[in-house]
């Protein structure tokens, strides 16, 4: 295996590849930080250009965009409570509260360190155990998926905020909203209320942008002119508030590593993506942290753990495509397409036929992770300056950007209408104490859970016992029950503490 290490490095390490990785990360950061635009658009856009490049250069460019894009969504999430990408929506919660407290610089730094750890963790995982991890991921079939998602849904309890039944209502509403549209297993359209365009379901990105970004803008306009959030004081007066001390970061490390593991696992399974892993790890952190009451109100841990998770999912989502030839996410599919076009077939044989290329790919990944780290600091500085602009200029710009960014995905006016409607819904929800993350998690997980259930029953010939016959499924079901139990205990504990 290591015989290819040196040739791989030499293949990778040339000026062309290095410049394209840098270009990729740069583009990725720009795409990621604009609300509505994401890495997938960037990657799809440059795909035709990659046809005329060498495979290693093409991969460098695509990887750079991917990693840059996934990280950069956190920047506006922290500074403005407007996620630049769906996977950053969980980061916005604590990140923005930190900014309001004048500690935005701290939050941004926590985010970038956590992202680096997440990236490198799953890069190494990919390099070392990709094949084994893929085998493990294959064992997750419909019954296991159902149990896993059930477990993930109990997590909603952890993010439902003060009122549990309101959180549950938000979750149920999310499940309902997700069942609008064509059902996978039966092929019929449900709840479209006669609007044909809804038969594809409520599009996720406009919904998310509406619930988080547009509702935030509405909330911002509530404040009187002159009074305002402390955007100007992002870095506060004291240096201490803008820098991140080791003593503050170190306690978060257990959460970070747990989030890395969650992110990598979710990434390796085809299907749920970075957004799911960010929310699930956020909720797990809330569950298991030593200071659960601080999560959600502005804690470093609450910023670091979703960011570690979503960046860990980044490289991990390439595992199914590299080891099995099956893309687990749209971006992995584009990267696979780019490889195929160059005559390289992703799949189990790739390690034998193109070992040198794979090694240069690994180096490219690690390099991209570090470049994101370096460019990220520059991005942070620029972003901090950018949000110092007076609110009456900044917010119209952000508002329009949200619209343009969302429109850029599918060029559909309906997306904008849905975004605005969910902006109103999100605004009302936030005012009334209903948890928006609960809605979003349920929306994300619901459909897959339903189809997993039906698929399991089909496989099991209609017997519910199939769930009991599969050890991994049983394990997740037990976890789900335990999680619900611990959740109840946590809530009671918090109640006695007065939260």
């Amino acid at each position, binding site marked *: 295996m290591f015989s290819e290490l040196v040739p791989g490095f030499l293949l990778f390490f040339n000026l062309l590849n290095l410049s394209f990785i840098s270009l990729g990360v740069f583009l990725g950061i720009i795409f990621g930080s604009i609300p509505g*635009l994401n890495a997938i*658009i960037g990657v799809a*856009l440059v795909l035709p250009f990659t046809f005329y490049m060498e495979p290693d250069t093409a991969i460098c460019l695509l990887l750079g965009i991917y990693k840059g894009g996934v990280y950069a969504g956190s920047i506006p999430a922290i500074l403005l409570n407007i996620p630049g990408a769906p996977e950053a929506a969980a980061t916005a919660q604590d990140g923005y509260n930190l900014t309001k407290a004048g500690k935005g610089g701290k939050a941004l730094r926590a985010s970038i360190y956590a992202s680096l750890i997440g990236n490198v963790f799953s890069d190494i995982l990919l390099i070392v155990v990709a094949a084994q991890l893929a085998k493990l991921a294959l064992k997750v079939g419909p019954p296991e998926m159902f149990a896993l998602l059930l477990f993930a849904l109990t997590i909603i309890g952890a993010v439902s905020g003060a009122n549990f*039944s*309101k959180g*549950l*209502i938000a979750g*149920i*509403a999310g*499940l*309902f909203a997700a*069942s609008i549209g064509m*059902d996978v*297993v*039966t*092929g*019929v359209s*449900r*709840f479209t209320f006669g609007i044909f365009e809804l038969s594809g379901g409520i599009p996720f990105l406009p919904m998310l942008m509406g619930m988080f970004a*547009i509702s935030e*803008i*509405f909330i911002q*306009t*509530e404040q009187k*002119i*002159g009074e305002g959030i402390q955007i100007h004081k992002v870095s506060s007066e004291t240096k201490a508030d803008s820098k991140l001390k080791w003593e503050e970061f170190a306690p978060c490390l257990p959460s970070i590593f747990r989030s890395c593991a969650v992110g990598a696992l979710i990434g390796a399974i085809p299907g749920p993506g970075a957004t799911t892993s960010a929310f699930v790890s956020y909720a797990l952190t809330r569950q298991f942290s030593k200071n659960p009451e601080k999560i959600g109100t502005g804690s470093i841990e609450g910023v670091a753990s979703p960011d570690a998770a979503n960046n860990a999912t980044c490289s991990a989502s390439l595992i199914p495509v590299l080891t099995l030839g099956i893309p687990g996410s749209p971006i992995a599919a584009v990267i696979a397409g780019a490889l195929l076009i160059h005559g390289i077939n992703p799949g189990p044989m790739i390690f034998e036929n193109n070992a040198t290329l794979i090694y240069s790919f690994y180096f490219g990944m690690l390099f991209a992770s570090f470049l994101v780290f370096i460019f990220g600091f520059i991005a942070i500085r620029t972003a901090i300056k950018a949000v110092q602009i*007076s*609110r*009456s*200029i900044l*917010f*119209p*710009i952000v*508002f*329009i*950007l949200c*619209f*343009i960014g969302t*429109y*850029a995905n599918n*060029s559909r*006016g309906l997306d*904008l*209408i849905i*975004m*605005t409607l969910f*902006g*109103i819904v999100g*605004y009302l929800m936030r*005012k*009334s*104490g209903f948890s928006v993350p609960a809605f979003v998690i349920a929306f994300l997980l619901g459909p897959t859970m*339903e189809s997993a*259930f*039906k698929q399991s*029953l*089909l496989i099991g010939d*209609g017997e519910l016992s199939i769930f009991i016959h599969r050890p991994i499924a049983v394990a997740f079901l037990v976890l789900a029950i335990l999680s619900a139990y611990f959740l109840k205990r946590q809530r009671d504990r918090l109640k006695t503490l007065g939260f």
Partner: protein
Amino acid sequence: MSKRSWDIIIGCLVTLFAVINFIAISFQEWAGGTGPGFMKPEYFPSIILVVMAILGLTLVFSAIFSNSYISDIKPISPRVMFTIAVAIAYAFFFEVFSFFITTTITTFILAFSLGERRPVSLIMLPFSLTVFLYFSTRFGLKIFLP
């Protein structure tokens, strides 16, 4: 309005929504090959709607009997309603009128409502933003705005 009454209203609305949809879905005819009971398209949604109705009622009752309501809800200020109206109008007219017109007007209105009074900025911002966005999306992203 107090938080309590607002919660009660929401609870009732949620239950009503669930019940109406449940009735609607029970009478729905589905085309296509169906299979055993769990495969029917309305199986899962029915469960969801039933739980939703129960939760709505739970909310109503806990709102009536709870002691932990302290403050009132801030009413929706006219400025927010105005912004919402602007957002809705922008979303609807985005594809109807040209991008230039809608975006320029919206940016102008928003900046003004958020307190911007410097005439130079008020005029320059909409135009420069609109032009910049149009050309960067057209040539950078190859997206055609209306």
